[in-house]
């Protein structure tokens, strides 16, 4: 009996412990089970089972009033039968009373205790095997149970089984481990390495130059040289002189045809981003330094040298583009924008002679002639595959998501949205947060696409972007494509991939701006040259082509044809239709803070490329 109680205690402890584990897992948003509560509950259950003396059976047995003056053997028999019945206490009490009465009636005429015992023994023999009798009694009594009680019992049994299965499922689900089968870092290194010859690689030179910039010596001034005070400019000039070697290295790097880093495994192979991205802070500083020096030289009238530094800066940006990680490409785009922005400003601020402009045009034409401005998503795709490999298990059912790992990718997911909107009361937001949490948890546990489906969705997503990324905004509008919406349809319901489309859309729109500015720069330089040579601006861009200053007019990414040009006395305006895809005659729209909106808005304004839109003067 004691062993049975211990086993029962262990089982109850296991169920309670399992439920607590699940509760704990839910409250900490699907963390892996602590596996402390379960053994603890089992241990407590075991101890309770071992120490518990007064069970329902023993309580029954201690009630002697039912037995009257029955002999010991009869009492023992009745207790045995009733004990083995294992049924509701009330029913057992009734059966006990009935059996006791039967024995009592049977020995009613006996004179001595000995005789009573003998007669009882005969009756016990007539009753037969107590175990079988108990079983028959239980079965018969069960049949007597009213329908509603049977329904309640069955319902609770079903719920119990369901909870047990759920607990087992959740524990199995939460303790899933990923199956790392592919070395995606090696694959990434294979695609980024353009050639085998290491001497053609700019990365080591940039790395060395970046490492030479000491944090404590780096001028902590603004990055826009034109806005620096004379003291700050002096500080920058001194730093440039002191770091001549840095410039030599970065210029040498910019002269190299290729740039690739070898991605290394991170310190923790279980981390989501398992490879180490190169030091981009150092690269950005190199770009700022080149721009500072270019401005310094332009101030001194050394335009050719200034343009050479701007070219190196642009080249540095280009080196970060291509089949590299998205973060590198974004920094590359920013550096390119930094370089073209500086060139526009210099062309606007200084009167540069025709020959220097011609050289600049030639250099810049060569620089961007083969440039694919579009973002490459190859490395991103590999990174996504690596992430899928690490967030999903590799086994049963095509591999399920591992919630604790998903949380590493999206740390904000586990934060129940207690922040809510300011309009909501704290109570409302807590309720909403709880609902979101339950929805998320249920979705992850039962409905989220598995590993295979996620791989397929990722492949489809990247194929889709490969297909549409080269389209200009005007083409996208003409074909009435909503890229983000269509991409979201592909990854719908996949928590791991749903963050990709909005991010990609934002990046693609940035790319269009950089491309427009880089391509139009050549036209602007050509127009300035024409003005220097002819003494006036051409009436149209066709005239500029006819005079052999440019080969073609860049396409307006937001318009039906090429960029728009208007001669305005002794100045001109060059613009793209901008985000509203309409010709607003080069109107500039401003943000609330007075800064010009570079691409206009979806309602008004154009993307004015020349003259450079200036911020509104503060009242």
């Amino acid at each position, binding site marked *: 009996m004691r062993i049975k109680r211990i086993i029962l205690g262990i089982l109850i402890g296991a169920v309670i412990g399992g439920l607590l584990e699940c509760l704990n897992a839910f409250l900490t948003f699907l963390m892996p089970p602590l596996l402390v509560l379960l053994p603890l509950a089992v241990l407590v259950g075991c101890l309770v089972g071992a120490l518990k003396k007064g069970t329902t059976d023993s309580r029954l047995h201690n009630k002697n009033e039912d037995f009257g003056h029955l002999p010991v053997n009869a009492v023992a028999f009745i207790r045995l039968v009733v004990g083995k019945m294992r049924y509701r206490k009330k029913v057992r009490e009734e*059966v006990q*009373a009935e*059996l006791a*009465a*039967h024995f*009592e009636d049977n020995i009613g005429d006996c004179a001595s205790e000995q005789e009573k015992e003998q007669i009882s023994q005969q009756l016990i023999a*007539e009753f037969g*095997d107590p175990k079988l*009798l108990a079983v028959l009694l239980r079965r*018969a009594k069960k049949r007597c149970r009213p329908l509603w009680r049977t329904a309640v019992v069955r319902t609770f049994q079903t719920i119990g089984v369901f909870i047990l299965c759920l607990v087992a499922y959740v524990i199995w689900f939460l303790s899933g481990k990923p199956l790392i089968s592919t070395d995606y870092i090696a694959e990434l290194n294979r695609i980024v390495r353009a050639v085998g010859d290491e001497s053609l690689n700019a990365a080591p030179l940039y790395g060395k130059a970046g490492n030479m910039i000491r944090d404590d010596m780096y001028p902590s001034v603004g990055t826009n040289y034109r806005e620096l005070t004379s003291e700050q400019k002096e500080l920058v000039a001194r730093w440039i002189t002191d770091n001549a070697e840095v410039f030599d290295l970065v210029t040498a790097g910019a002269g190299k045809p290729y740039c690739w880093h070898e991605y290394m495994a991170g310190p923790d192979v279980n981390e989501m981003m398992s490879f180490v991205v190169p030091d981009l802070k150092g690269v950005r500083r190199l770009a700022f330094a080149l721009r500072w020096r270019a401005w310094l030289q332009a101030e001194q009238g050394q335009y050719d040298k200034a343009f050479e530094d701007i070219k190196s800066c642009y080249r540095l940006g280009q080196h970060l583009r291509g089949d590299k990680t998205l973060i590198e490409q974004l920094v590359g785009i920013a550096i390119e924008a930094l370089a073209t922005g500086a060139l526009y400003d210099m062309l606007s601020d200084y009167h540069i002679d025709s020959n220097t402009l011609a050289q600049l045009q030639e250099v810049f034409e060569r620089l961007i002639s083969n440039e694919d401005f579009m973002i490459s998503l190859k490395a991103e795709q590999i990174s996504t595959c690596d992430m899928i490999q690490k967030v999903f298990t590799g086994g049963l059912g095509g591999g399920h998501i591992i919630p604790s790992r998903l949380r590493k990718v999206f740390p904000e997911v586990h934060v129940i949205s207690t922040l809510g909107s300011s309009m909501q009361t704290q109570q409302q937001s807590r309720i909403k947060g709880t609902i979101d949490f339950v929805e998320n948890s249920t979705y992850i546990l039962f409905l989220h696409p598995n590993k295979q489906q996620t791989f397929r969705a990722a492949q489809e997503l990247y194929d889709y972007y490969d297909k549409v990324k080269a389209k200009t905004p005007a083409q996208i509008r003409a074909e009435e494509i909503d890229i983000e919406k269509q991409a979201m349809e592909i990854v719908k319901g996949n928590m791991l991939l749903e963050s990709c489309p909005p991010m990609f859309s934002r990046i693609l729109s940035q790319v269009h701006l950089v491309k427009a500015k880089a391509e139009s720069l050549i036209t602007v330089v050509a127009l300035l040259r024409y003005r220097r040579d002819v003494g006036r601006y051409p009436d149209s861009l066709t005239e500029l082509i006819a005079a052999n200053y440019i080969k073609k007019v860049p396409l307006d990414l937001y318009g039906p044809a090429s960029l728009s040009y208007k001669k305005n006395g002794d100045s001109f305006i060059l613009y793209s239709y901008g985000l509203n895809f309409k010709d607003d005659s080069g109107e500039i729209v401003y943000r609330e803070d007075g800064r010009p909106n570079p691409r206009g808005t979806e309602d008004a304004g154009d993307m004015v490329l020349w003259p450079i839109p200036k911020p509104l003067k503060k009242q």
Partner: protein
Amino acid sequence: MKFESQLLKGIAPVVVLEILSRGPMYGYELSQAIEQRSGDILTLGKGTLYPLLYNLEAKKLVKGYWEDAQSGRKRRYYSITGKGKEELAKQKEQLRELAKGLDLVFGGALTPA
């Protein structure tokens, strides 16, 4: 001669219903009544008696209730229900048919002379 076999088990419910149709009884009384009224030929095993009574109760053929017996102690009495009476009549009819059939098979040898 006592019957404690499958044969008796098959007719035990009818026997119990028949005895109870003459008045409510508690378990011990019932087992005594069966033996007495069958001239000690039919004996219902005690291990069968209570499960049988509970089964009949589950089928609503008998009704059990606690009451003070003549001795002053509480006993669980069983009485036949309306449904029990109908079932008894049906079973009796079948038994009569069975007896008739057996009689024919045995050429009247089963009928006492």
